[in-house]
């Protein structure tokens, strides 16, 4: 099995696909944390909400319309959350933030149960992305390649915005030192709101594109939360590069662990997490030096 090139290509693509989903989720969470030291444990619930909204809209607008509108709906929900709960918790300290956003997870799980029920919901793959594509001698589902390409495209856009634009420089300055950023006239709180809403939209996008390959269930937000947190702790809080590195590490360790060392697969990532925390407590590529 392991001498077959096809095996490695297939598993690498699987790992990349998982990595890109995790990247879409973790990048928003980590930049929000880096900028304002705000812990939003309900980030996974926004992902679940994105999946449900996409599943609902797909029946009316088709899958493409759902992919487009679900992130916007989640961004709108994020804005509502910001004004009702998050803004007032900004100065409340990490313990209050963790408790409030942890509470939100349970509210979200039960709200999705009430609205959409307990049974898993499916969503159709868009027609153009159906089927398989031959790649280096392996037949691979086109839709999963689409997820990889989408993740890379988002990474490209975010990198360009953060490194080439004035807004990007402002965000990096805010992550470096929010007080000094304010002293050069930057409204850091408004920037935080912007980053928060964009992070919510990306979580919604992740949920929407994951919906056709995973079953959409009320607890999917809770299931994705731990991997997302592991990604940002391994990668280093607050940094885009850290989110990329953490997502790739998680995706590859999880995927290859499951096929090469099946009996250890569930502990591998935690062992790695522990090793990172012992040797590099700030993560591999932290935003702050």
């Amino acid at each position: 099995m392991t001498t077959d090139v096809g095996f490695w290509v297939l598993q690498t693509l699987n790992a990349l696909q998982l990595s890109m989903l995790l990247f879409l989720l973790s990048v928003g969470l980590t930049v929000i944390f880096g900028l304002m030291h705000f812990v939003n444990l309900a980030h996974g619930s926004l992902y679940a909400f994105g999946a449900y909204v996409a599943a609902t809209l797909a029946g009316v607008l088709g899958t493409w319309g759902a992919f487009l509108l679900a992130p916007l709906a989640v961004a709108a929900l994020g804005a509502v959350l910001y004004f009702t709960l998050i803004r007032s918790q900004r100065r409340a300290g990490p313990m209050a933030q963790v408790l409030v956003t942890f509470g939100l997870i349970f509210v979200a799980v039960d709200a999705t149960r009430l609205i959409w029920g307990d049974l898993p919901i499916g969503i159709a793959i868009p027609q153009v992305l159906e089927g398989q594509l031959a790649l280096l001698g392996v037949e691979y589902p086109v839709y999963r390649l689409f997820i990889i390409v989408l993740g890379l495209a988002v990474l490209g856009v975010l990198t360009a915005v953060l490194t080439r634009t004035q807004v990007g420089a402002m965000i990096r300055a805010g992550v470096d030192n929010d007080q000094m950023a304010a002293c050069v006239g930057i409204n850091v709180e408004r920037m935080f709101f912007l980053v928060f809403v964009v992070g919510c939209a990306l979580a919604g996008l992740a949920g929407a594109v994951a919906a056709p390959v995973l079953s959409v269930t009320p607890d999917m937000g809770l299931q994705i939360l731990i991997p997302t947190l592991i990604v940002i702790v391994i990668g280093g809080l607050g940094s885009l590069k850290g989110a990329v590195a953490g997502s790739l590490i998680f995706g590859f360790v999880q995927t290859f662990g499951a096929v090469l060392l099946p009996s250890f697969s569930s502990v591998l990532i935690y062992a790695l997490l522990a090793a990172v925390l012992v040797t590099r407590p700030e993560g591999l590529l932290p935003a702050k030096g």
Partner: protein
Amino acid sequence: MLDLTDLSSGYGETQVLHGLSLRAEPGRVLAILGRNGAGKSTTLKTIMGLLPLRGGSVSFDGETISGLAPFDIARRGLAYVPETRDIFRSLTVRENLDLAARRFPCPQGGWTVERVIALFPRLGERLDNGGDQLSGGEAQMLAIARGLLMNPRLLILDEPTEGLAPIIVRLIHDKLAELKRDGLSMVLVEQNFGFATSLADDVVVVSKGSIVWRGSTAAIRADHEAQHRWLGV
């Protein structure tokens, strides 16, 4: 120009300023002197809105600015050069400069990136370096340049000479003297008595969170008793 009235402020449970009042006049340099822990840096942080005010008020050109957010205070024309310089580490030198320059486009005859590089040519050689790759002197030059690019009405400097080699201290001194000649108003916190008194017009001395001495630079130079008592000079 800048009026602090009966200011009380501090960190957490600890109150540092106890009813501090002072005034900075336009076109002049005010030095705030005092021993370590007297409350000099706390005064500057309170002016910038970085510490919560417990009492008193700050007004700038007749407008009350205490209670405003730091970004709002900065936009009213106060540029702060902190003791720790606080260069944005993940930005290049050019990005550090642009960040301030683009938010405060220069009015007629104002500061531009070219002009601050002419003032500190060393920064011109470092434009593509990261903010975390600078020497202490370069970081201080960049912090002052960044402040100037905000085209401020008042430049607030916290211990600009701290930790710098004598030759760099002299350079910073000459540049600040040049800015003073051009009429820039400044508030300067310093431990270095000689440096401060050679730049300042007016002097206040802080001890235990309030002003214990105020007067002209000539007066503090002549008042050896005050120097000995409050500054340990």
